[in-house]
C-alpha cells in the first residue's frame, strides 16, 4: 500500500520548521485568504436552508402568496410561533422527545460504555464473539428488523392485556416501553466506546489491579473518567438519534400524549396543510433544541470524535 512507503512509524516530534522566505509567506497568506473565502461561501450554502426556514417562520402569510415574494420578510411576525403552538401541542411533543432522547443517552452511556470497556480492556471468554456480533449488528439496518420488532413489542407477554404467550392484548404498543426499550442500546455506540477505551493506557489498569482496586472500580473510577469527551460524544449522538427518531415512534404510538416531536411535525404538516409560515415555525421549534445543544457541546464533540480513533 502507498501508506507504508510514506509513513515512517516514528513518534511525532515537534520538528524545527525550516525558515521561510517572505514570498512564500505572502503566498501562504493569499492561500489562507482563498481558503477563508471558500469556507465562508460553503458554510453559508450549508446554512442557507436554515436561514430560509427561520425567515419563513416569521413571514406574514399574505407575503407567501405574493409573486414575487420579497426575500426578506417585511415585518417580524412572531405570532406565527404562538399560533403554531396553539394549533398543535408542541410542548407535549417536545417533552416526549426529551424523555425519549434522555433515556437513549443515559442507557447508551451506561450499558454501551460497560460493554465497550469490557471489549477493549478485558480478556474474557467469548470476547471476540461478542465484538464480532456487535460489528455485525452495526451492519444490520433497523429497517430490516422493524416489522419483527414491532410484532415482538405487540406480543410482549403479560403487558397491555397480553397472556403469558403474548396474545390477546396490545403488549407494549402505545407505551413508553415500546418507545424506549427496543432501541435502548445501539451496537454502534458500543463500538464507539470500545474505540475510546482502546486508546486509554492499559498500564493504569494493571497498576490499579496491583493496588487491589476492584475490576468494577477500575472501570468506573479510573478508566472511564479518562474518556469524558467520549462519554459526551456518545451521549450527544444518542440524544440526537432519540430526538430525531421518526419511523419507530410513528409505528408504535397512537395517542397524542405519547407523540414525539418528529411525528408531531409530520402530522402538523397534514393539519396546517398549506400554511407554510406555521409549518416553518413548527419545524424551527423541532430543530432548534438540537442546534443549541450542539452549539454548547460542539468542542467536546469534535474532541470526542478525534479521540475515538475512527481514522
Amino acid at each position, binding site marked *: 500500500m502507498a501508506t507504508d512507503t510514506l509513513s515512517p512509524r516514528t513518534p511525532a516530534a515537534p520538528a524545527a520548521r525550516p525558515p521561510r522566505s517572505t514570498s512564500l509567506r505572502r503566498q501562504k497568506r493569499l492561500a489562507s485568504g482563498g481558503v477563508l473565502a471558500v469556507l465562508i461561501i460553503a458554510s453559508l450554502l450549508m446554512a442557507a436552508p436554515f436561514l430560509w426556514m427561520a425567515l419563513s417562520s416569521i413571514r406574514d402569510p399574505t407575503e*407567501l*402568496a405574493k409573486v414575487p415574494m420579497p426575500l426578506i420578510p417585511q415585518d417580524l411576525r412572531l405570532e406565527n410561533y404562538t399560533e403554531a403552538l396553539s*394549533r398543535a401541542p408542541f410542548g407535549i411533543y417536545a417533552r416526549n422527545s426529551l424523555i425519549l432522547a434522555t433515556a437513549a443517552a443515559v442507557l447508551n452511556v451506561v450499558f454501551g460504555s460497560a460493554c465497550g470497556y469490557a471489549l477493549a480492556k478485558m480478556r474474557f471468554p467469548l470476547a471476540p464473539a461478542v465484538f464480532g456480533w456487535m460489528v455485525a449488528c452495526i451492519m444490520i439496518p433497523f429497517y430490516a428488523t422493524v416489522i*419483527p420488532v*414491532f*410484532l*415482538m413489542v*405487540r*406480543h*410482549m*407477554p403479560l403487558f*397491555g392485556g397480553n397472556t*403469558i*404467550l*403474548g*396474545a*390477546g*392484548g*396490545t*403488549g407494549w*404498543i*402505545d407505551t413508553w416501553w415500546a418507545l424506549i426499550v427496543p432501541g435502548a442500546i445501539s451496537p454502534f455506540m458500543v463500538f464507539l466506546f470500545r474505540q475510546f477505551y482502546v486508546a486509554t493506557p492499559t498500564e493504569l489498569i494493571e497498576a490499579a489491579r496491583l493496588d487491589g482496586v476492584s475490576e*468494577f472500580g477500575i472501570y468506573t473510577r479510573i478508566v472511564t473518567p479518562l474518556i469524558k469527551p467520549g462519554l459526551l460524544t456518545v451521549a450527544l449522538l444518542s440524544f440526537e438519534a432519540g430526538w430525531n427518531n421518526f419511523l419507530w415512534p410513528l*409505528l*408504535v404510538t*397512537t395517542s*397524542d400524549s405519547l407523540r414525539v416531536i418528529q411525528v408531531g411535525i409530520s*402530522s402538523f*404538516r*397534514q*393539519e*396546517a*396543510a*398549506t*400554511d*407554510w409560515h406555521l409549518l416553518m415555525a413548527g419545524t424551527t421549534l423541532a430543530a432548534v433544541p438540537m442546534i443549541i445543544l450542539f452549539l454548547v457541546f460542539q468542542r467536546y464533540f469534535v474532541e470526542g470524535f478525534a479521540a475515538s480513533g475512527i481514522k
Partner: protein
Amino acid sequence: MPVSRRTLLTASGAIAAGAATLTAAACGSGGEMDPEEPVDLDVPDSALTGSIGLLTPDFVGDARAPLDEEIIAPFTERTGVSVSVDQVDWNKLNEKISTGIAGGIIADVIMTGVGWTQPFAEKGIFAEIPADFIESLGFDESVLVSTRFEGKYYSLPQALDLRFLGTHPDLLAARGITERPASLDELAAMALELTGDGVVGLDYLSGSAGSARQAFVFLLYAFGGCMFSEDGLTPMLHEEPGRLALQWMLDRISEGSIDYDLQAAEGQPSPFQQRKAAISLVSTGNWVTWTQMTPELCEEGAVDLHLMPSGAGGDPVMFQGGTFLSLSSLSKNKDAAGAFMKHMLDPEILGIANAATGKVPPTPDVPPNEQIESSLLTQFGLQNLPYAGATEGGSAAYMEVRTNLDGIVETCLTGRASVQQTLDDMKALCDGAISRI
C-alpha cells in the same frame, strides 16, 4: 454492588426464555376476529356508557373546532359517551389502520374513502351495518354502491367530494366557443383551441385530480369502462376503455393542451384560479380556497360548470370521492360506536359537518345551511348526484392496488411505459392482488 451475580444470571435466563416465547408468539400471532356480531343500532341512549375512538382523515385545521364543539359535544351530552378523535391525513390513513390492526389498537368508528370498504370488510375489520337502517335513510343509489361488499353494507357515506369540469367563460368566448363539449373528442378539440398565449387548455392533472390514479379512473368511466367486475374478482380497467382513457391523456399531453408539469403549489392559487388554464377539473372541495383566494370566481356565472362528457356516447359522468363511516368489528363498545354513527348521519349533523369540511352531504335533504347553499360547486354536485358513477375501487383487493396504480399511471403519462405495457402492468397488479384474497 447491589446486584449479585446470581440475580443477574436469573435475570438473563429469564430474558432468554422471554426471547424464546416471543419468537413463538410473534410467529403464531393470529388473533382471529370474532365472527360477525351484528351491530345493534337501537340501544337506548341511557344504556350507553364508556368512551369510543374516532379515526378521521377529515376535519383538518379550522374544521376541527366544529367537530369537537357542534358534533361530538351534543352526542356526549346526550349519551354520556366520550369520543376521542384521532385525525390522520388521507395518504397516511391506510398505514394508520394497518398498524392499528397489527398493534391491536384501532378506533371504534373509522372514516375511510371510496374503495376502502370492500377490502376492510373482507378482512373482517369492518362490522356489518343493518340494511334496514341504511335503506331508511333514503340515500341515492349512486352513493351506496361503494358501501357494499358481497351484498351487505359495511359503511355509510358521510361526506362526498365530487369532481367535474369548470371553464372560464370569457376565455372560451374569446375563442368563439359557446357550446359545451358533448363528447370527449369535442372536449379535446376545445382544449387544443384554448391552448396558447401562456394558457393551457385543460388543467386535468394538478391539484383537483387528487392523484394520477383518480384522474385515470374518471376518464375510464367516461369511456364507459369500470375498474372491476361486479364481484370484484376480475379486473376490467385494462380493457378498451382503459386504453382509450390513457391514450386520451397522452394525446392531450403531446398536443400541449394538458401539461404534466403544471402543478398546483401548496398554498398557491391553482393554475385555473390564476387563469393559466381555461378548463379545469374542479372538485367541490375547491370552494373554500376559491372564496379565500379568488372570490371573484365565486360569483354566479363566473365559472361555467359541466359534467365530464362521455367518450362512448352515453351519459356524462361525475367523479365521486367521499368519506365513509364504518364501525370496527374489533370495537369493545359497539353499541356506543353505532349510536355515534347514527348521530353523524342525522341530517342536521350532516349539514354542520359538511359545512365545516367544505364537502357535500350525501343527500340534499339537510336542513337549510348557509355554507352549503352558498357553494355553487356543492349545489352543482348535489343536482347531478345520479351521475356520480365514476368511483374507484370495487374489489376486496383494492387496498393493495391503490397506491401502486398511481405509479403505473404516472409512469405512462410521463412516457416511461407504453399504453400496452401500462395496461398489462395494471392487469398483473390486480390479478396478483385478487389471487391473494
